[in-house]
């Protein structure tokens, strides 16, 4: 630069000497030489720059084409005559799975009148086979499906609706998309898009200078940017780098990259990527990319099912997704859509009548974004942890896997409602809660709440709050005892009296009952149902801590269990999910059933990758568990759980156990019906004291949940080796059914009382004589 400046300066001076002229001539030659060198350097730099841009744009192009988040689905609703579902829950399920109210004959619509439903399913590719499109008619009465009929489509006694998508596992940059392929598009979409955005798409080489010139002229006339001359290719490139600045350098780069892209890829590759890449809206932190996802997002429908007026809206929104957001600015969006419909008509894509009809239609946008970002953060958290056993995080984020979970949306809603409506009534604002619901016999996790605000994706108490379980441990102590029928039955009298334990190191332990009282002798079943502390410690010490510990471990706890007798009163820390795991075995006659959140994982194309099958493993004698279940039912009817029936009708038979730790730091309830197992924890994150007990803190949440869900009562099948007898518990004798104090109770065969007494409590003379002879 300095040289050229100097070269110009002499030109302005006159006259010049010959010497000066020669020098000037020399300099002029030098100037050209330098210019040439600079041009060459420029070319090399440009070539290098092109190589750099090429690498950038191809890597983006390849990356975006295949980077798809994993999709997480709820369990599909199975419809068959007798299926338990309320009309309200069915309607909620339909909404969640993207069905809209309509005539029930268009795919993805339903019609409800009272308890009668007409549903037109879309069909779905499940890992185990395709569920075809069907028209269904059914009615709901008494919370059960009645008269399911397939009106159109292949007949079947049982059909699955497409599952609701409940979340995704997104790439770090929070972009989401549903990949669409060119051959599965609505025919109208590509020509409509080209008519509006890039008429010469198939003719240009990435840039269209004429269009740019036209646009520039229009912009100059208007004194601002009113028209863009970008081709689809340029828009695609712009989308890759998503910067809003409108500099000349950026425009130049875009143009260069567009040309490079066109050199590398075919028009159809570019078009397909464009359709999957274009930015079409925002849902919180998540951006909506591509027509496939936008169709779901705005209309809750599959792209292939969209009608012309809906396609026109999406095409129109390309110009400015937030400016033309149909939910926020419906008027603007309508005007834009109608303009697109005009252009489609001009391009001959729509006849006049069709275009006129389309213009007169409302926008047809669904009320709410059809799926917001991970509606069920706590549940998805557990799903991710289960997936992490077999999959790499980066694969989950980008490989487009399909994850079929066991989440039951209706149960989840009931669970969230139980927590959010009950906690405020417990007073303390710092109280937190967790709720786990599983299917009793399959171990499928149906619902999960990780805190008092179920939408908050933070600390997940259901999985990570490891807290002392208090009296929830007692059933395992008694189970270990009842597994020795020659020593313990439900009517074995236990000492409810104080005692002191002295350890070798000199420390002393003196357990107490919650109410501080002593009752002398109590039968075992009552000691459990009323949750007395003194008898359980005596029983535990009698059968041995090792026995109790191994029972807990067999039922599936992974917590460390101390060897101190305080563990008999629940000085064992567990998470709510772990408690649900160990109670599964109690609810199912001694079969440990591993909890599952995932049924199957497939790749993006539907090919199965992994299946997580039902497993059962017998870990206890069903006969002993049946006895324990008796006492756990009694807990609900006469014991510490009876206040559940303030909320739940007596008609629903339940079984369960309360748990409370010192100073009310933890309130627990774990219990089950015929179909469901639910565990609730309530307490403070700082482990502070509360005035609550299991019955006043956790049980209200549990009952509120149970009361909302249609389900079967808990009436366990009497297993082999168990017989029911009428007994007089106090006298430990068989008695007559008619006697006032007679109680019908189960015994492991051979462990029932040997003596019989009358209603008055008298032993028949002969038998008494025989017994006296035996024991005196």
């Amino acid at each position, binding site marked *: 630069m300095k040289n050229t400046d100097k070269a110009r300066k002499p030109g302005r001076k006159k006259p010049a000497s010959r010497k000066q002229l020669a020098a000037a001539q020399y300099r002029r030659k030098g100037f050209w030489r330098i210019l040439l060198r600079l041009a060459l350097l420029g070319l090399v730099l440009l070539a290098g720059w092109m190589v750099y841009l090429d690498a950038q744009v191809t890597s983006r192009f390849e990356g975006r084409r295949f980077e798809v988040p994993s999709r997480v689905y709820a369990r599909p609703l*199975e419809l*068959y*005559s*007798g*299926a*338990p579902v*309320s*009309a309200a829950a069915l309607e909620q399920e339909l909404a969640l799975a993207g069905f809209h109210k309509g005539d029930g004959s268009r795919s993805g619509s339903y019609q409800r009148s009272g308890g009668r439903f007409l549903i037109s399913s879309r069909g779905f590719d499940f*890992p*185990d086979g395709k569920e075809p499109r069907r028209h269904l008619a059914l009615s709901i*009465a*008494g*919370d*059960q499906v009645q008269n399911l009929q397939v009106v159109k489509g292949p007949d*079947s*006694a*049982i059909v699955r609706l497409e599952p609701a998508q409940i979340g995704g596992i997104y790439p770090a940059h929070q972009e989401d998309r549903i990949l669409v392929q060119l051959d599965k598009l609505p025919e109208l979409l590509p020509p409509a898009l080209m008519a509006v955005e890039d008429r010469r798409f198939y003719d240009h080489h990435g840039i269209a200078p004429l269009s740019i010139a036209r646009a520039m002229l229009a912009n100059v006339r208007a004194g601002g940017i009113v028209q863009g001359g970008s081709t689809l290719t340029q828009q695609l490139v712009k989308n890759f780098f998503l910067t809003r600045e409108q500099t000349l350098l950026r425009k130049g780069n875009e143009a260069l990259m567009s040309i490079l892209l066109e050199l590398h890829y075919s028009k159809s590759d570019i078009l397909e990527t464009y359709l999957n890449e274009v930015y079409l809206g925002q849902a919180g932190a998540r951006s909506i990319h591509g027509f496939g996802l936008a169709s779901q997002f705005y209309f809750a429908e599959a792209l292939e099912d969209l009608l012309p007026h809906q396609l026109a809206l999406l095409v129109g929104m390309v110009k400015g997704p937030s400016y033309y957001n149909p939910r926020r600015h419906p008027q603007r969006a309508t005007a834009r859509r109608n303009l697109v419909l005009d252009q489609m008509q001009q391009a001959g894509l729509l006849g006049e009548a069709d275009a006129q009809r389309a213009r007169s239609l409302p926008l047809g946008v669904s009320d709410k974004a059809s799926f917001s970002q991970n509606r069920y953060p706590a549940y998805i958290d557990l799903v991710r942890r289960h997936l992490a056993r077999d999959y790499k995080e980066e694969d989950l984020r980008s490989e487009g896997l399909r994850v079929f979970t066991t989440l039951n949306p209706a149960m989840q809603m009931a669970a969230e409602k139980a927590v959010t409506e009950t906690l405020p009534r417990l007073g303390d604002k710092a109280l937190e809660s967790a709720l786990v619901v599983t*299917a*009793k*016999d*399959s171990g*499928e996790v149906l619902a999960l709440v990780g805190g008092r605000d179920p939408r908050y994706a933070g600390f997940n108490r259901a999985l990570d709050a490891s807290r002392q379980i208090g009296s929830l441990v007692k059933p395992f102590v008694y189970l270990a005892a009842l597994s020795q029928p020659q020593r313990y039955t439900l009517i074995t009298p236990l000492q409810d009296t104080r005692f002191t334990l002295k350890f070798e190191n000199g420390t002393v332990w003196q357990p107490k009952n919650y109410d501080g009282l002593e009752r002398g002798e109590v039968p075992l079943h009552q000691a459990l149902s009323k949750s007395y502390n003194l008898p359980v410690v005596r029983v535990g010490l009698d059968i041995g801590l090792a026995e109790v510990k191994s029972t807990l471990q067999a039922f599936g706890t992974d917590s460390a269990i101390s060897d101190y007798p305080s563990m008999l009163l629940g000085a064992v820390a567990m998470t709510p999910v772990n408690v649900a795991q160990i109670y599964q075995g109690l609810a*199912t*006659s*001694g*079969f440990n059933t591993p909890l599952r959140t995932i049924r199957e994982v497939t790749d993006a194309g539907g090919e199965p990758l992994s*299946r997580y*099958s*039902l*497993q059962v493993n*017998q870990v206890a004698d*069903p006969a002993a568990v049946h006895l324990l*279940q*008796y006492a756990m*039912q*009694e807990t*609900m009817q006469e014991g510490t759980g009876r206040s559940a*029936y303030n909320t739940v*009708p*007596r*008609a*629903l*038979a339940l*079984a369960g156990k309360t748990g409370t730790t010192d100073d009310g730091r933890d309130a627990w309830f774990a219990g089950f*019906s*015929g*179909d469901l197992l639910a565990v609730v924890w309530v307490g403070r994150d700082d482990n502070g004291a509360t005035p609550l007990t299991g019955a006043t803190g956790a049980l209200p949440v549990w009952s509120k949940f149970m*009361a909302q*869900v*249609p389900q*079967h*009562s808990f*009436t*366990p*099948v*009497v*297993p*082999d080796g168990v017989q*029911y007898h009428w007994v007089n518990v106090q006298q430990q004798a068989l008695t007559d059914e008619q006697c006032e104090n007679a109680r*019908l109770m189960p015994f492991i065969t051979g462990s029932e009382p040997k003596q019989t007494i009358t209603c008055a409590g008298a032993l028949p003379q002969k038998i008494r004589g025989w017994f006296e002879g035996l024991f005196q």
Partner: protein
Amino acid sequence: MMRVQMRARVFRSAVVCAVLLLAGCASGPGGGIYVPAGERPQAPKPPLTDGAAKPADEPQVWRKSEQPFEQKSQQKAQQQTGVPGYRESGDQMPAAAAGLVKEADTLMAQGNGAAAITRLERAQRIAPRSAAVYFKLSEAYVMTGQLGSAEQFTLKGLSLAGRDERLQRSGWLLLADIRRARGNVAGAQQAESRAASL
């Protein structure tokens, strides 16, 4: 050799199961359902036990194995407010579940045990307290060579067979076959003698 024998024995059990399944199909799903308050105007149904679950106009069928004495006792127990309930047998299979089991049978006949398992798991979700579903799962696991799982599902089925002697017998025989195939001769004999004692 062992395997062939095993297949034959399991087939024998399967036939028993199939007969049982057909019997099961004849009646509807066992047990009524609790309907949350506010869902419909009617009052909730009474407590659910074997007896109470059946509609009033349906004639009561006494199985030979069911002791009328105990049924009556139980009804008395249920009449008292808040007494733990129980029942003598598991659920019958609803038609939808029986249809899936039939599909599973077809798949098994085609040698596709894995696909049969997916159908049976669907059936299990519909009829989780039906012993027959678990026996079928057990057969499918025998087919896929997972005898450990097969044994566990048989045990689970047995825990729900209650007083139904036919179900009990087919379950114990299936268990005997599986145990023998696993080399547990003593366990097999024990199961066989249980079947014989019924």
